[in-house]
């Protein structure tokens, strides 16, 4: 019985994961400008992967009857790295002044003048002292 | 499955080879890299296509052929070294010749020579 419930949970998680991944990719495919498309994969996909990781963790913990938490690592790594990709991509989008939909509000200086922001933030070497 | 696999190696090889026939160094290097992917797939498959039987000795009864895998590993590493050298040679050639044509000459020069 427990196994049936667990199997149902794992199955549900898997399908949910697949769905989230799919939705993310759909966003990437059909949202209307680059900055909007950026949202899809960075979030939906992370959750999709998360669901699958949990499913995998459960599955192996059950079938091999010992706790499998390795999948947490993947989540950890993704949490660390995914925002960096997104951030840099957005920076590139701004740098290339990609078109965005007209209804977007806010007029960031990035689109007006290349040279922005003044002095770079000081390095550790002097902020440490 | 085998047919599809073979077609894929064929297509990748053909694409890579096509690129190696271009006149500029960068596509040529990309082509060589693509070709090496194809060749690795080819070499890998010489031990047959086996699902879910990695050559990790355990309690399983059948394993994939580990030898082609080891060969491909070696081939990947060597391919990487070669790609690295080739691409930097391409940079160097551009630095020395002033253009990135594989024959080290500009388009107008070649027009004259023909």
């Amino acid at each position, binding site marked *: 019985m427990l196994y049936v419930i667990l199997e149902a949970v794992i199955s549900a998680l898997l399908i949910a994961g697949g769905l989230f991944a799919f939705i993310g990719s759909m966003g990437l495919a059909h949202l209307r400008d680059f900055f909007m498309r950026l949202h899809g994969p960075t979030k939906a996909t992370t959750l999709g992967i998360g669901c699958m990781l949990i499913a995998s963790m459960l599955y192996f913990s059950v079938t091999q009857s010992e706790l499998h938490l390795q999948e947490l690592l993947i989540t950890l790594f993704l949490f*660390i*790295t995914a925002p960096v990709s997104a951030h*840099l991509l957005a*920076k590139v989008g701004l740098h*290339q002044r990609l078109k965005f939909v007209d209804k977007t509000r806010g007029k960031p200086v990035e689109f007006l003048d290349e040279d922005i922001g003044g002095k770079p933030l000081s390095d550790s070497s002097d902020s440490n002292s | *499955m085998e*047919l599809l*696999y*073979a*077609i*894929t*190696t*064929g*297509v*990748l*090889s*053909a694409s*890579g*080879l*096509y*690129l190696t*026939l*271009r006149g*500029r160094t*960068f*596509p040529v290097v*990309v*082509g060589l*890299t*693509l070709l090496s992917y194809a060749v690795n797939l*080819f070499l890998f*498959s*010489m031990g*047959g*296509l*086996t*699902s879910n*039987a990695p*050559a*990790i*000795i*355990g309690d399983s009864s059948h394993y*994939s052929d*580990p*030898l082609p*895998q080891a060969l*491909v590993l*070696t081939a*990947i*590493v060597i391919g*990487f*070294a*070669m790609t*690295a050298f080739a691409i930097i*040679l*391409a940079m*160097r050639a*551009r*630095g*020395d010749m002033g253009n990135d044509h594989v024959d080290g000459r500009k388009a107008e020069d070649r027009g004259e020579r023909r």
Partner: protein
Amino acid sequence: MTLLWIPMLTLLGVLVPALTAQRGRPICTLATAALPTLALILTLAQFPAIADGEYPRVALEWMPQLGLDLAFRLDGLSLLFNILILGIGLLILLYAHYYLDKSESHGRFYAYLILFMASMVGIVMADNLLVLWIFWEMTSLSSFLLIGFWSHRSEARKGARMAMTVTGAGGLALLAGFLLLGDIVGSFDMQTVLDSADIILADPRYPLVLVLVLLGAFTKSAQFPFHFWLPHAMAAPTPVSAYLHSATMVKAGIFLMARLHPALAGSELWSALVAVIGITTMVYAAWFALVESDLKGILAFSTVSHLGLITVLLGIGSPMAVLAALFHILNHATFKAALFMCSGIIDHEAGTRDLSRLGKLAKAMPITCLVMSVAGAAMAGFPLFNGFLSKEMFFESTLHTQALGGLSLMLPVLATIGGALSVGYSVRLVHAVFFAEPRHAPPKHPHEPPRLMRAPAELLAALCVAIGLFPALIATWLLAPAVEAVLQAPLEFHLAIWHGFNLPLAMSGAAAAAGITAYVLHRYIRRFIRDFPSRNANLIFEGAVQYISDKAEVITEFFDNGSLQRFMALLIGTALLMGAIGLFQVETLTGPKGNQPLDGVLILGAMLLIFTGIGTAVTHRQRLLSLIMLSVVGLIVSLTFARFSAPDLALTQLSVEVVTMILLMLALFFLPQKTPRESSPSRSLRDVIMCSGLGVVIAALNYAVLTRDTNTISSFFLENSVPGGGGHNAVNVILVDFRGFDTLGEITVLAIAGLAILKLLNRLRLFMPHSDSEGRIWCPDRYPMILTTVSQPVLPLALLVSVFIFLRGHNLPGGGFIAGLITAVGLILIYMARGVDWTQQRLAFPFQPIAILGVGIATLTGFGSWLFGYPFLTSSYDHFHIPLIGDLELATALLFDLGVYLAVVGATLMILANLGKVTTSHRPSKDDSTPIPSGLHRTDISDTANPNPDAKETV
């Protein structure tokens, strides 16, 4: 054994002038003469034996596989020639002592001369066809050096090359002929060949052999139509001409015909070929001698003509003809050498050899005049001189031969014409120089040369008279063994000064009359021939050589047009052809194993690969896009590896993929961002067809193998992985143990790549665009802060994962290579996030030693097994039980894998970090990067002063 000393002493003589040249010319000349004199004495010492019909031989085994023995003989023929070669050679040496200018390098000249002498001695004494050929070609070489001795003169250089080319070509034909001959006879031994006439004449290859051998002989002896080089060889110093073109080199061809006479001459083909060529040469050259105006030119053509005469005699081939030929060889050598020496004296004293500027020299040079008149009379064949005797025998022979069948009657007629011309030019030679009025004044006021310079010519002239008067006494002893050697049987003969009034004498008379008439009329003749365009053989030859080499250049450029695209197309085309040939022999493509079922993910993967693979090619002109396509291919390939049970491969491919991408991105910055359209549509179509062809072949072969089961050696690895290699991951055990030697080579390749790239980066001049392909100025944010910060925890995590992957590799997917790449990528991320300078300050180690250390550790692991008496790279492992911790397995393979790890880290960083470094310090900073119109910023980095650029890497 004494026999061996004759050629060897002469050959050793080459060193004497080289060693004594510094001690002044007299000493050098004397010293140089010593060894040839000794050789001559040794030769003469053999005479009694030869006279008894014996001939001494010596043979040392040299190269039995080729049938080549160092074999010499001294029979009558060799004896005759040896005396000529060494005797006249010594006279020439004496003559040259005076002839050469003080400033000229006599040592070099003598060395060449002796080398030539030795080669000639070798030819005439060779008792093995191949030995003969070896010395034969050596005469071509040494004559090249001698003719070109006055190398500052264009004529000399050209003449030397021409002689070399013609005689060299003949020598190659001769080699072919000899090899065939040896094949027919089964040996290169001279006597065996001479005794095998029956076999040779019966062999279907005989005509070919004959033609090839005669080609050799005719080119050397300047027979028509190969005569043209000889006059141009006159650019040599006169001693050379006197030696090479009277007594020796040109006689080598004659010698060859005489030597092989027993083996080859017994056919109509021989007579026809040899006699016709000989008579043609004789008349043709005599005509040119008559109209030539250069003193040495006349002598050169006359030489050709007389050689033709001898050739005719050998062609006729009757015993008397052979005797006549040998006699004329002797006579021609004496009078022609004398004539050359005299002409040299005249040239030396009067400063010119042009007949129109010479004349009336009899008063100034009475003795020379006398000598030259005697020798000239001998050449003309006037009675009482030696030339007369052999000429009479020649006429006699032409009268009695049937060598040319129905056309044999032509021979005496042509012989008489030749004789007449000979008289004509001889008379002209003497008369024009010493008695006629010169048309222009000579450049110098002539007088007699030094006494000893004249002496050789005087001696030879005296011989001409002596032989002419007492032939039986002086020549018979020499000729008898020679004739016996040629005919391979003794011949009874009597040389006499007078044979009574007979037809030959009448022919001589007619020739003399006609000859003198011809000389009288020769001005008109000359005027007549001036109307014909002159054909300078030198110009024609040089022109031909030039034409051929120009054509060669055109052909070479046609094939090798310097286009890599063509070379690649040829390579691919060849591979396609070869693969297809194999494919056509595969009867059924689908093997017995057949296909496994497909699933959706497989189809998807294949679709992705095919799409992005083709996409990489199609988008190649937008380079970044092409690169992104490529990296999808890489990703799917690694998924494919995972799908088909190769986790190690998947991991490796993934990590290599990242590094490759970084590398290509780095490079792309310095290369143009886009490829211009270059290939014509037809070229692209050709490429597509060819590449698809090879793609189809590869796919078909792949499919054919995949659908067949093969019994492989793999089961051994699977069975022995744990018991033999101590690891559960068979792939890793293969890599570090079963085939560790491959891996050692592979990390060596990586290390070399690093070193090679260092070389390429040295003094690299870079093109750095100040804006991207769309013209946007680069973003000022060099090190985006978020990237910088995130890179900090990623590095320790990457290192931890490296250790994990490294340690588990032996039993589970992983290993040193992947671990090394992960470490390297972690560090590269720091480089990207923080820049070279910042990172370099904190990386306290240079990369080259790390890479090399890796290779070193792997090698040392290999050596380690020697200590235990096992072959290189023999692994060993053991289990240790440690309290609390449990079982621990230690394998030497792990040490080897550590080497792999270090090599990978070192090499990868060496490549990427150095590449990154090269660019950075020279990048125009934002402040000074005012847009440059060309759109490129070119920086010249020079650090040649430091031969080891990696040294700067250490901080």
